[in-house]
């Protein structure tokens, strides 16, 4: 299963290689991810930057990715290699939720 996922991820990378996605930034400001919902192509590197005075985290609900505590101006990046919808939240302020939809 894991191997299949890796192959899938790899094929995703190859398929999108010709239209290599831009890096995208999500700002964390006033207890919100902005944009809250995002659609990107496979291979896109997404970086979350915390602009708030308090720490936040970025935690994918199925633990696909989890940042540590991001203090003010700290950032966390994840490169999406598999298509699908990834929902995440802040483990400090669980009312903060966001999602990234990854397309081929």
């Amino acid at each position: 299963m894991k191997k299949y996922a890796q192959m899938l991820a790899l094929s995703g990378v190859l398929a999108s290689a010709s239209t290599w996605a831009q890096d995208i930034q999500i700002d964390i400001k006033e207890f919100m991810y902005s944009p809250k919902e995002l659609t990107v192509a496979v291979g896109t590197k997404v970086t979350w930057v915390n602009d708030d005075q308090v720490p936040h985290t970025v935690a994918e609900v199925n633990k696909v990715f989890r940042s540590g505590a991001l203090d003010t101006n700290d950032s966390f990046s994840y490169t999406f290699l598999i298509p699908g919808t990834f929902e995440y939240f802040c483990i400090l302020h669980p009312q903060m939720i966001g999602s990234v939809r990854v397309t081929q």
Partner: protein
Amino acid sequence: MKTGPNTPEDVTDERRGLSRRELLKCSAWAGAGVLWVMSGGIPRAFALDDAGAVLKGDLLASDFHFVQISDTHIGFNKEANPEPLKTLQLAIDKVIALPKKPSLILHTGDITHLSKAEEFDTADQVLKRLPSTVHYVPGEHDTLDEGGGKAYLARYGKGTKGNGWYSFDDHGVHFIGLVNVFDFQPGREATLGADQLQWLADDLRAVATSTPVVVFTHIPLWTIYQPWGWGTEDGDQAIAMLRKYGSVTVLNGHIHQVIQKVEGNITFHTARSTSYPQPAPGTAPAPGPMTVPADQLRNYLGITDVKATQGDHPLALINSTLI
């Protein structure tokens, strides 16, 4: 007298007693057994007799008191308070200056800001100056280490159950420290979890209903403001177990401001922080640190002194700011 965050016209010299304005203002807070009075910017609780008269004398006769401090956030250094260590020192000075040494001290969490070892070390060094034993529960800021709370539990979890919950007795009062800063789920309020609720039910089995109970936990046990996650989803299950007790006081932190509610025999109270203020529910786009003019910061920070009288009375809570 310096005034608190209230507007000057709301402040009445306490020697003049209760004005009609104060009574009207407090009527929303008055429950069966307690009356909250805003006086000089300081909310005070007075016991009520059956006819609704204020039993002010009982406060003075109290023979046991303890202090709650909360949300020290050691490691925070942003605009809202660049020096939370200094304001914690002021809070400790205030506790030391109390006319009578408190029997014990409760710290309702967010000891540190980022759960770093050096933050815990600094907090420990400074809190050592407190004149009585300190009992802790963790805040969510104390669970940010790589182990997700292991650093807190290694320091403060000795003799506790699960993720750090426990109970003890002092002066005939049953104290229960609950933990609601683990296992957060997206879009949901905090939780105590089934294991802790089962433990609570077992713990209360040996406690007579005439015993005063004090529950202390970080995030408010009742929902104060859902959009900001200021509440505990299964807190009502814990509260249901406490309804049969004659005197229950629930002390929380987390929201960095005083909010109180009385429901039957249960008094709910959240304490000020010693580090930085947060906005009143819904008054700002987000619950982040609230920056106030530097010369007013101490009006927004403070400690809570809780007095217990022997007998069937609610505990009296006196919140004081750091001015």
